[in-house]
């Protein structure tokens, strides 16, 4: 019977920030809720739950996604990086985090997880981004403090630093 395919929870296996987890994902539950409530990683923020604000951004299999728009049960196996996983092995800030710190890219900090991950994906593809590329790269994130200029400055500073050291 085809009905055998229907289950009431899915046992998913994820490597989150390098650590393996096996969790029960209830149908309908978002990746955001799984990360915050089941894994206790509350650095990923809940904002609008409609996909517009970007505060819930995480990296899924190497690409940034909005975790509120991603259903946990649809990810039987996944590699996930949250903001908790960005620091370097020695515990210091990575170059993008450091640049955000130096350039006042953090104001209230609510949008920070999304801004950082978006900046990282952008810089991985465009090591020397133009202003237009930075705008598009951060377009999926809203900053309620409207600190966009410092965010753009931070991305440029991070880019310069990363080019210098690579």
């Amino acid at each position, binding site marked *: 019977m*085809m*009905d055998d*395919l*229907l*289950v*009431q*929870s*899915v046992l998913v296996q994820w490597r989150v920030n390098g650590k393996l987890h096996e969790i029960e994902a*209830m*149908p*309908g539950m*978002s990746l955001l809720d799984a990360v915050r409530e089941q894994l206790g990683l509350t650095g990923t923020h809940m904002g609008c*739950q*409609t*996909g*517009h604000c*970007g505060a819930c*951004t995480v990296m*899924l299999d190497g*690409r*940034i*996604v*909005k975790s*509120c*728009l*991603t*259903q946990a*049960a*649809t990810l*039987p196996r996944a590699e996930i990086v949250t903001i908790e996983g960005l620091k370097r092995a020695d515990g210091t800030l990575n170059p993008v985090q450091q640049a955000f710190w130096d350039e006042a890219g953090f104001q209230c900090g609510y949008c920070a997880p*999304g801004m950082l991950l*978006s900046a990282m*994906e*952008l810089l991985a593809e465009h090591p020397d981004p133009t202003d237009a590329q930075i705008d*598009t*790269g*951060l*377009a*999926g*994130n809203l900053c309620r403090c409207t600190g966009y200029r410092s965010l753009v400055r931070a991305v440029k500073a991070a880019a310069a630093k990363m080019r210098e050291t690579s």
Partner: protein
Amino acid sequence: MSLYPSFARPNSLAQASELLAGLSGGSVIIAGGQEIMPHINHGAMQPDIYIDIGGLKELRGISEADGVVSIGALTVHRELQGNAIVAEKLPMLADAASRAGGGRQVHNRATLGGNLVAMHPLYDIAPALLALGAEVELVKAGETRRTSLAALMHETSHGLGSEAILVRVLVPAMAAGTGWAYEKLKLSGGAYGSANAAATVQLDAGRITAATLTIGAVADRIIDAAAAVQGLIGQAWTAAAAEQLELRCPALVKQPLSDQQGSGEWRQAMAGVVARRAMAAAVARAGQK
């Protein structure tokens, strides 16, 4: 029946189709989730059964054969923007996909199939595909059927999303030298356009020999503006031709949308403006490699 929803992840198209047929309509297909998750998060949608189609290989990949580009329904916007076949044979589709809002995060997960099945008047991909004469392949209760996207958008009982699966989108490769443009007129930095237009054009010695034009975001359905471009055939693209086109389009908008994107009257006028801009840009691009 449990109070909790059920979930299934079939691993072949045949299995998914059989499963959906047996459930007779009570289920919701989920692909990237970008469309349905906001409704689920806010409790506005509470499906009893989710069918996750992410495991269906038949819905993946982009290939070209005999002048037709076949694109799997699970292809995400990001792939449409970066795929070499799409870039070469369907540049207008790549461009329209890049104009969608939501940022990179959404582009990384939003599927072509989900975008089309949503049939949202403000979305960007359908106008481009309609101007390119796309067809779609659907499977319902084990039966495969192929139809034009234009016809599908007027069907009321296609069952997509609950009983039927959109498998692939089939688009004739754009002929060499075809001019094209996708115009999205936005009021603000938000995601959606107030009027969108997709145009293709072919020129011969400065005269228009063929043209297609669709206009989106101004009515609840995307408008095929073939009637408005008819008068351009055989003519050169002059200031007078451009003005004629701009004046003809508003009449095609019978019941304009009036929403956050602007008032109905203005949208009707903008239908002409984006049409003219799209055609002008398409003409400028025609014949170039």
